[in-house]
């Protein structure tokens, strides 16, 4: 049996994660390509609210590729952000004073973004990364076309 699968089943048996979480983790393991399969890092909150299960991911970078065609010629943007930087950035959110967080939340919701900054936690980021295998967004405007690709590597 695969070591990661065994680890997940052991966590399930120990009651550290729920059956749904175990199923999700196993599905993530199966969908991982060979280069990214293996041990995971990060936390997933257990059913009891504690951060019991430690999950590790091999993805080291978040890559954002933007290719747009404009009148004058093509424009490309290629950004590679280390995952550690994203995690550190999320931790930075916890340093924002509560009063400022409230103001930020109010401004965001005023602009149609129902986001609560205080609820952004590193485990949310891990969950996002798990689901962000390869996202491609095509943007069509009147005169310009752009393709945005976001993936982990």
């Amino acid at each position, binding site marked *: 049996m695969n070591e990661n699968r065994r680890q997940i089943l052991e966590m399930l048996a120990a009651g550290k994660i729920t059956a749904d979480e175990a199923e999700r983790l196993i599905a993530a393991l199966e969908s991982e390509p060979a280069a990214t399969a293996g041990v995971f890092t990060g936390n997933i909150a257990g059913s009891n609210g504690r951060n019991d299960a430690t999950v590790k991911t091999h993805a*080291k*970078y978040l890559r954002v590729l933007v290719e747009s065609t404009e009148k*004058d*010629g*093509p*424009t*490309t*943007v*290629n*950004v*590679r*952000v*280390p995952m*550690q*930087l994203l*995690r*550190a*950035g999320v*931790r*930075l959110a*916890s*340093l924002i*004073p*509560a009063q*400022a967080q409230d103001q930020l939340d109010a401004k965001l919701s005023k602009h149609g973004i129902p986001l609560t900054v205080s609820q952004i936690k590193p485990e949310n980021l891990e969950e996002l990364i798990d689901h962000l295998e390869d996202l491609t967004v095509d943007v069509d405007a009147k005169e310009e076309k752009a393709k945005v690709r976001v993936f982990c590597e």
Partner: protein
Amino acid sequence: MIPNVAVLQIESPHCHMPTLWLPLFLLWIPLILLSPLILFVILAACIAGRVSFWKAIATFLGILCALRGLNVRVTTYDSKVLVRIL
């Protein structure tokens, strides 16, 4: 590990400069000299914002260390900007 070198390259019709290798480790010298002042400012900000001083230091160090490997490359038909942190 804290990044040691940054690579900067800017090419445009108005400005064409060679690839710059910036030795970030040299910044440690003024940083160490100014550390009492910097720590005092951070401490004052933490007290004002009611944030743990050590947590703030750990977070900023975490961000600094995580900058390694950052790569930004923007290319248009006539200009190019590259920023790499090694």
